[in-house]
């Protein structure tokens, strides 16, 4: 299990030593992405086809108290289905029928594959095609995998968006270049970016996922795409297949990351330097000031990342370069070397990058390193706190608006708060 190895990936840009681990993982599966995706795409519903475990996972990750009825559910496979007493296709049709009747407002239904549905080789893409014919035009049915044997946490979003790529309309030939921002962002962040792009004179900006699943943006040879999230390998690959051109950039965390990210778009659209500086200057200054206010709590502190969302490398870069922290270990479930090339170049050389996981070995290393702050998942946070480590639960980094200038201070604060809190408590 613990066959770890240092692999040398040459000496080109983005290449550095990466420790590979293949042991016990302590990471959510891709189903968990549903927790934010069902809020992002407002006319979509996510139906997991899986086991009671899958239902329990999504429910536990979302918390029992959801303010409105969630737009996700599970079709739980039972013994009759497995024994062949019930025809799986018929059963699925019946469940989807009941669901569509209950939620006539649904325009886009995702059948989400799970470990059990994949192991029994239930063909959800075929089922989706069949059901789509039945419910179109009111409701389109698509499928993707969020299973734990295929996907880790945020890869569920990647697969979901990849599923949408096939459905995106084709851009008319010769259309003017447009910008496609890929990856779910908080609505407020999306609006801020829209304003900034408009200021730069980039008028045609589209977002994937859209807030309404029925209004998918068109894609074609004129599409320039900017990734808002580092975990979108498959989506980006398929978009390139449809003619879109990737604008390589760091990710929009912090003043520096956001500026570089915006600049990649500005350069592709020929925005002149003066205009770029004028438009981004105020936000950038605000971000720098806001981060500086929290910087005092973070400067000189050592941080250790357990793998979780694939955001670890950009976040470590932000903490190192803008907050003065020292990343000791940056664990990530998967490292997309190409999409992270710019980030890897900016990450201090001393930071140990670990791809994959062997949770017990990693805990040993964490205890030995005695970092000032440990970023980890919900299963590890309280136990580490009890051992005396200040922790930041990583899931909050995905559920809070963190990208862009106006959120840079909040982002720094998410890391500073656990430290401030410890200093505050006298019990």
């Amino acid at each position, binding site marked *: 299990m613990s066959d770890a190895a240092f692999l040398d990936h040459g000496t080109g840009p983005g290449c550095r030593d990466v420790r590979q681990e293949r042991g016990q993982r302590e990471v959510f599966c891709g189903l*968990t992405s549903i927790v934010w995706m069902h809020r992002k795409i407002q006319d979509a519903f996510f139906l997991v086809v899986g*086991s009671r475990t899958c239902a*329990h996972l999504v429910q536990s990750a979302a918390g029992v108290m959801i303010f409105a009825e969630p737009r996700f559910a599970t079709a739980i496979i*039972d013994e009759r289905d497995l024994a062949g007493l019930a025809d799986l296709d018929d059963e699925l049709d019946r469940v989807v029928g009941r669901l569509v009747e209950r939620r006539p407002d649904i325009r886009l239904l995702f059948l989400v594959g799970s470990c059990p549905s994949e192991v029994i080789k239930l063909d959800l893409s075929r089922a989706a095609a069949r059901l789509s014919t039945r419910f179109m035009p009111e409701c389109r049915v698509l499928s993707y995998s969020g299973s734990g044997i295929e996907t880790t946490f945020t890869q569920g979003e990647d697969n979901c968006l990849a599923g949408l790529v096939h459905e995106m309309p084709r851009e008319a030939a010769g259309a003017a270049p447009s910008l496609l921002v890929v990856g779910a962002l908080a609505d407020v962040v999306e609006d801020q970016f829209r304003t900034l792009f408009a200021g730069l004179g980039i008028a045609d900006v589209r977002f994937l996922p859209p807030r309404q699943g029925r209004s998918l943006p068109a894609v074609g040879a004129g599409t320039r795409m900017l990734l808002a999230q580092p975990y979108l390998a498959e989506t980006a690959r398929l978009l390139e297949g449809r003619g879109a051109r990737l604008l390589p950039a760091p990710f929009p965390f912090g003043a520096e990351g956001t500026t570089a990210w915006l600049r990649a778009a500005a350069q592709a659209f020929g925005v002149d330097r003066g205009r770029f500086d004028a438009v981004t200057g105020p936000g950038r200054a605000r971000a720098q000031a806001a981060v500086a206010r929290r910087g005092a709590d973070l400067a000189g502190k050592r941080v250790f990342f357990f793998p979780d969302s694939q955001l670890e490398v950009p976040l470590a870069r932000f903490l190192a370069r803008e907050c003065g922290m020292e990343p000791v270990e940056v664990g990530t479930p998967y490292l997309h070397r190409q999409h992270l090339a710019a980030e890897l170049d900016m990450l201090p050389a001393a930071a140990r990058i670990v791809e994959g996981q062997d949770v017990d070995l990693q805990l040993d290393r964490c205890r030995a390193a005695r970092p000032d702050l440990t970023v980890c998942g*919900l299963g590890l946070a309280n136990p580490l706190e009890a051992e005396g480590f200040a922790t930041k639960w990583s899931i909050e980094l995905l559920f809070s608006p963190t990208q862009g200038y106006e959120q840079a201070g909040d982002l720094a604060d998410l890391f500073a708060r656990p430290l401030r809190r410890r200093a505050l408590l006298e019990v």
Partner: protein
Amino acid sequence: MQLTLWTYEGPPHVGAMRIAASMTGVHYVLHAPQGDTYADLLFTMIERRDSRPPVTYSTFQARDLGGDTAELFKTAARQAYERFRPDVMLVGASCTAELIQDDPGGLARALALPIPVVPLELPAYQKKENWGAAETFLQLVRALAAPGARAERSASVSSRPPSCNILGATALGFRNRDDVPEVRRILERLGIEVRVVAPLGATAADIARLGEADFNVVLYPEIAQRTADWLKRTFGQPMTTVVPIGVGATRDFIAEVKTLAGIDKSFGREQTRLPWYARSVDSTYLTGKRVFVFGDATHAIAAARVASRELGFEVVGLGTYSREFAREVRAAAAGYGIEALITDDYLDVEAHVASLQPELVLGSQMERHIAKRLGIPAAVISAPVHVQDFPARTSPQMGFEGANVLFDTWVHPLMMGLEEHLVTMFRDDFEFGEGRAPSHLGHAPAPAAPAEVQATESPAAAAPAAGSPVPWTLDAEKELRKVPFFVRGKARRNTEAYAGTRGIALITVETLYDAKAHFGR
């Protein structure tokens, strides 16, 4: 295939985790994909546990399938043994591993570890969390309970005080943490020695000693009944049948353990306020409040008894998601002249509550959620648990102090007596407006039916009047709106029922007041 929005119970392997996490020196090696590690957060976040639950997952991936998933499991088991050095190991499969049929029991046996290894067969597509916990506890006890323990008991029978074990409390159990000390105090006051509490806090060595006690206290039948049955067959230990929730049940419990222990010691003064609080005049407003009860079987049956006999409520609905105990719940419901609701379908429960329009809901966090949406006061009496169900203060459900807690918790969400009258008299006071919460609660309940809820509910839930589709005149509707919101549901229901039985085709203001006179109390 079952459409599920929310589930009351997790899969059976989560039940097994609860047993492992309850004990010390037990480690569970689970053949499962990475996502199943989410279950750790139930313990570390909901229960605020300060250590990881003692579980190692093999976390196989698609690329391992058809290759060496079995080898992965063996490595995980071996490494878990070397790292954690447990006294006993549980091994088993989650839902996905069950499908790939690697036989964790056989694989672990092949490792020839120098400790007992208990293989668990928990059919994930058939059974659920509580069953998984009960089965795991039983298998652990069967594997570890020393046959010699009984001999030791008979040898020293006269020289020792009577003794018992307390069985069934677990990690993530609803208030189990506080119930155990409460019940222990009762037993010790009677001069009964508590030998082993299990699984919560027990070691493998404790399990070996189970046979030494004279009898078993079954604290929570969902988890402990099958083990207690086995102990009775194997060691001849009798067991309790009363769960001491509420004053009456606690008294019955005391009588029962005295018989089992063969003692006639008086319990002495009961530290209970519930009987007086329930009799004090300000409690008259509780009389006949219509209450809906739903939860696991143990807590639901007990809550119905307390609600009806100790607080003077009217139990209008009683149900459980514990199908294994459907018979007991049906019998209890029959005692209130109602039919039990046996379901694990959240939507069924929601529709049921909506059609009954009770004045108080006693249920799990799920029913609290339903009640919140329908604007009905609610209190939580049962798992599934939430972080709020692990309060910092001691808050038992069992014993006399538990009964005091029940009084507070159930009465608190309701409007207080005089306040209720004032609202009725001066309902036009602007501060008594729609959806006002009881004044001692800071937050207002959600308005009865926000737009989104309306749009998304099942047809039965969207129309509380289902089954009695008698239309209302505009004036009657207006008059109904003058009825305070917290009894309006009942007024509507009563009027419609009244109209239904009299064959009235259109409800007028007149009908409303006729019905009020008819049902008036």
